[in-house]
């Protein structure tokens, strides 16, 4: 089967693949931007409430997760350098480390949400209903934005797990790595979004 495919010059457009990925990422940016705009408007409307609700956030966990994601971006981009040099083992190590750090991020996030929910700060809770509208909006945005971001981390981990197998099987190699490059682009964008979420929620107080 494969021989037949190789006998015929295959259609391949790495730049097109990358451009397509970037166009998709731009729609992702605009998706989150709607939420960022909503946050900006609400924060100017309820500055005191946002400040007060921000004191309930666990800044240490937020900063820790930032370092975790920044480091995962590094291991991701290093795996691409490795595959371009034909260092397959190192490339797998990089992607593996990225997946692992992504999981660490989600575990931290789970602890954080668990604590917030334990404090009664979750949408629809009786405690939240007693708070002023501005604080309710803050927690609404907090769960929506970190939740949507968390889903993206989960998707990123799934995509990278597939890439790990593809590198192992030689489907991603020194000569054809645009798939890994695109997976990396997605992962880095998830990192960029978190870079903005950190000061908006965890350092707001």
């Amino acid at each position, binding site marked *: 089967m494969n021989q037949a495919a190789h006998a015929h*010059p295959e259609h391949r457009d790495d730049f097109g693949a*990358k451009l397509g990925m970037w166009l998709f990422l731009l729609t992702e940016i605009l998706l989150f931007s709607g939420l960022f705009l909503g946050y900006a408007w609400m924060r100017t409307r309820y500055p005191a409430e946002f400040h007060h609700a921000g004191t309930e956030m666990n800044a240490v966990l937020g900063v820790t997760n930032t370092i975790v994601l920044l480091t995962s971006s590094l291991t991701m981009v290093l795996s691409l350098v490795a595959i371009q040099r034909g260092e397959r083992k190192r490339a797998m190590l990089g992607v593996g480390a990225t997946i692992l750090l992504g999981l660490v991020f989600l575990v931290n996030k789970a602890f954080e949400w668990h604590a917030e929910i334990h404090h009664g700060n979750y949408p629809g809770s009786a405690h939240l209903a007693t708070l002023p509208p501005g604080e309710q909006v803050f927690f609404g945005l907090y769960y929506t934005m970190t939740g949507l971001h968390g889903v993206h981390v989960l998707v990123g981990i799934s995509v990278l797990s597939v890439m790990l197998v593809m590198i192992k099987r030689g489907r991603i190699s020194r000569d054809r790595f645009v798939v890994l490059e695109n997976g990396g682009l997605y992962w880095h964008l998830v990192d960029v979004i978190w*870079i903005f979420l950190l000061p908006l929620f965890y350092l707001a107080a």
Partner: protein
Amino acid sequence: MGEGEMSEPMTAGAVPDLHGGHAAPGYGTFVAVWAVLVALTALLVLVSRSGQGAAVWGLLLITPVKAALVFYFFMHLRYEGLLLKVVVSVALVTLLIFFALLFSDIAFH
């Protein structure tokens, strides 16, 4: 240019990176960028602790620099051609216009 690439798939395979190749950055560049990103995060935390006004300025000044570093280096925009840079810029400028409109609306409401 796209046509040329498509008609010569073998060449495209032999030259892994059209816009980098030998100029492609090594491990060191990215480790350095990562160190700067971590340092900027520390700076952002410090600035945010010194008061509400400083926190907002930290958010508005330091955060975009961090995002730009990720875009420029980790996401390889630095090593891409003009077309991709323009496409991304158009989207980001559009976004800036949206934010400018929002804040002008808030300011003059």
